[in-house]
């Protein structure tokens, strides 16, 4: 269960955090130039919407069929995930994932917070996982890409990815197998993509040679392929930040 304390306590905590942060900020300025407000002011934009609650609070999977489940309520949740940046990514450009506000957040890269279009995955499980369904809730502020990964071993995996409607790239949806880093599309859809700044639920099932993807309850891709038979499950996006995953569950059929 997630924390549901009284409002007054929240406000008190926030003020405490602010004071501590300000103290720390001033302390960190020792020996540095005097800070001044910016001389240019940006135009006014509509405020960025706050992240709405996920469609269903909490994680409701349980039982013997559950291989793993995570609602990211504690900071140590990150330790249960392996972060993978495919390709030749120098250390300073590696993606940064964090558990923030009860979700797993992709937070751009280690390069002073710069965004990067490189692919990144958070995977869990082991090489013996064969047939399962991975489900996740996704809220994309401004990343533009997310997806799921199944049966991952090294640079080989099945992947479903979808592009936001706010970006012009197509095809919007791709179900593909990636073998030794080489992607082969199994299913592509030019349209539709997904709308940012709202929660989506995505799932991907691998049972035998059958692969099935649903988005917000509707089947969006199905394929048959027997190339990859087992491996990890995970989440996919690009190291552009602005995206959060929550209530991830991997369960056997």
């Amino acid at each position, binding site marked *: 269960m997630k924390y549901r304390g009284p409002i007054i306590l929240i406000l008190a905590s926030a003020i405490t955090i602010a004071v501590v942060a300000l103290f720390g900020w001033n302390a960190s300025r020792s020996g540095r130039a005097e800070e001044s407000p*910016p001389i240019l002011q940006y135009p006014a934009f509509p405020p960025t919407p706050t*992240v709405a609650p996920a469609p269903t609070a909490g994680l409701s999977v349980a039982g013997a069929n559950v291989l793993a489940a995570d609602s990211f309520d504690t900071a140590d949740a990150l330790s249960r995930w392996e972060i993978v940046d495919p390709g030749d990514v120098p250390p300073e450009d590696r993606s940064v994932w964090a558990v923030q506000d009860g979700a797993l957040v992709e937070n751009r890269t280690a390069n*002073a917070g*710069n965004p990067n279009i490189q692919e990144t995955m958070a995977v869990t499980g082991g090489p013996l996982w064969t047939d399962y369904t991975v489900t996740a809730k996704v809220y994309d502020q401004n990343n*533009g890409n997310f997806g799921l990964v199944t049966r991952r071993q090294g640079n080989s995996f099945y992947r479903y990815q979808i592009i936001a409607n706010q*970006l012009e790239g*197509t095809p919007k949806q791709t179900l593909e197998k990636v073998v030794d880093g080489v992607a082969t599309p199994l299913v592509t859809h030019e349209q539709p993509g997904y709308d940012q700044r709202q929660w989506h639920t995505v799932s991907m099932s691998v049972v035998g040679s059958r692969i099935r993807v649903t988005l917000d309850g509707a089947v969006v891709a199905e394929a048959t392929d027997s190339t990859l038979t087992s491996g990890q499950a995970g989440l996919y996006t690009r190291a552009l930040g602005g995206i959060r995953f929550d209530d991830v569950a991997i369960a056997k059929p």
Partner: protein
Amino acid sequence: MLKTRIVLFAAMALLLAAGAAAAHSVTTQTSLAASTPNVLASLKLPGSDESASNAGKFPRAAASGNSIEIISNPGKDVKNWSKLDSATTVGDPVKLGGVNGNTTDRTAAIATAPDGSFYAVWIREGDGIFIRHKPAGGSWEEQRTVLSSGSSLYTVDVAVNYNGQIFVVWNQDSLLRYRISSDGGASWSGTGIVSSKTPRGRTNFRVGGGPGDAAVVGFASSSGRVYGAVWDGSSFTATDLNSPGFAADASARIAPNGKIYVAWRVVDSGVYYAERQSDGSWPITHLAGKDAYGAVSIVADRQSNLHVFWAGNISGGWDEWYAFKPVNGAWQGPVKAPGSASAVVNASGVASIGARVYGHLVSEAFNGSSSYVRYVLFGSDATGVSATPVLDGGNNATNGTSVALTFTNVSGTPTQMRWHWGAPPTDADAWQTYGPTSVPLPSGIDTTASCVQQTLFTQVRSSSDTQATAASDSIIVDRNVQANVEALNPFMAGLPQTYSRGVTDVYTKSTDGAYDGDPGYTRIPQYFLRVVDAGDCSGLKTVSVPASNVTANITGGRYENKITLPQGALQNPGPVTIGISLLDGLNNPGSFSRDLVYDPANTDTTGSNPNTDGLPVLGSGGKVEADTGNSIIRTLSFSGIKVTDNLYRPNNANSQFWGVWIANSRTQVNDPNSSTSTLKWYPARVSSPGSSFTVQWDLFTGLGYGLDRGQAGDYYVYVKFLDGAGNATTGTLSTGKVTLTQGYTIPTRNLPIILR
């Protein structure tokens, strides 16, 4: 979820606290009127579409006048796009090379040189760093190598200072390194290190060039500090700019007015820049708040107006931003580029001044499935006034006493102008009505010197504004012809083979002569004319010898020919004066006079009474003896020599000869003047002709023996005497028999091993 509300409250509290802490240091600036920049175009550069893994990274732009050049590396190809500054479309790119490796690290860059040309550089993985040059208005020249080493090279940048020094800077083994070329990239210095500070990542730096030999590198370190490294003529000195927060993605530029800038971003705090002061300090300006992504690009246009480009998510999406500051005004903007339905990052830019003040932004864009290079054109109307002088319509040299002054790159509405030779104008230089005029050249120019460069500095003003930085143009003053002119004996040894024979002479009749002699004499009615450019800055154009009816163009700065003497074939023996006229590229005339003595064997000018009166005459009583050493080199000792000549050394009775003409024989020759003689005669100059002298002589000369040690036996040496024109005496002296015995010496010189 309530967890989002916690963040919101905390953020509000932080904002309140931060605002209270910062409100005491608001900066106030005096503002000159200038329009807020607006967006004129935004587009995808054609040919830049690539997959995300081969994305065109870190696009760069450079400006020269109204020409804009853009460069990036999509698909691992180094591509260059060209456009005019006001154009709202861009044509297809030109491929300059390839980077081979990861496009994130193996980047390309471009810079403008003070002559208006461009230099493009890039890293090719495994091979090194390469450069190409594009002259103003020309095409890209062949690739040259900056560094032929291929390992661990990440990100490259280039700048050119006003002295023409090219600085190429790159990241290698976690240090910023550089090389310099002072000859347009033909040769490069050794590799130096900008700073011992480790740069953050592989891409956090830029280099800029400025007036004189100025250059600066801006970079952020791995510890989040930002540095300005200023070139002092021999090395870079890096100064910590004391960033107020974790710094990244710095750039640096030097404005035409010499001011040095470094801009960077501070994580979660926005865009900052610092301007170096004369005391070496770097006061910081917080330009824009909130957050910025990737590179922050600061540039200056030719009026020293500042332009800054960056990317961020201020609107809640992916934004590119542009701000503009007139040199004497306040910052304008920031202006947001139109949304592109793509993620954008690593904005860079350049600025130009034409009909308006233009900012040209280039950035990396990703549309969710593929990447491309994006271009955005901003324009603003600055009230600043400026103009660039053009002397004599752009000619690089003049031979006049004044130059025509016009202007180009005119901004605003100038009404007055002033100028000064050699330095920017001051209040001592009177303002005059703006417009084309004639400006006298400085009176103190050394008119005898070659190629004197003069630089005119101008400044214009309108009713409301004065050009902040004087502009200049240079012209070479060339009022003389610089050339070496020779009229020579056409039989001189050492002349081009086209015009003289070798040195193996024969004597079968009295008119045969030697192929060497006094350069001021000729035995035929011809002479060898040689004209060589001696540094004439407009180049030699034509040569003429009116009396010889010769006019010719001079190509490659050199003219050589054998020319008939002015008076023709049957002229009187004796001194001849040859008048030679030259014109250089500016039609400066050069008149040269050269004297030569015509000294033929036959002095008859009627053509009906041939004679040998022009030959030197060997008097009786002279003799020559060879020494008795057992060596092929013998000293020939002359005594009792009396030689008379009609024209040579007229004031030296009995020693009117230039040298001797010597032949060897293995048998005694009864008549060295025989028409069937096979003797080979060799000229030898006698430095002090007189009744007695010596000459060192090789008995093997002309016999083809080389260093043969089996040529012991008898030799006979015969000697004639030569006048300056190479005419020979009919009289001949002989040494008589000269004997070499077995074991004779062949003098050799022992060379060091290294020279053998």
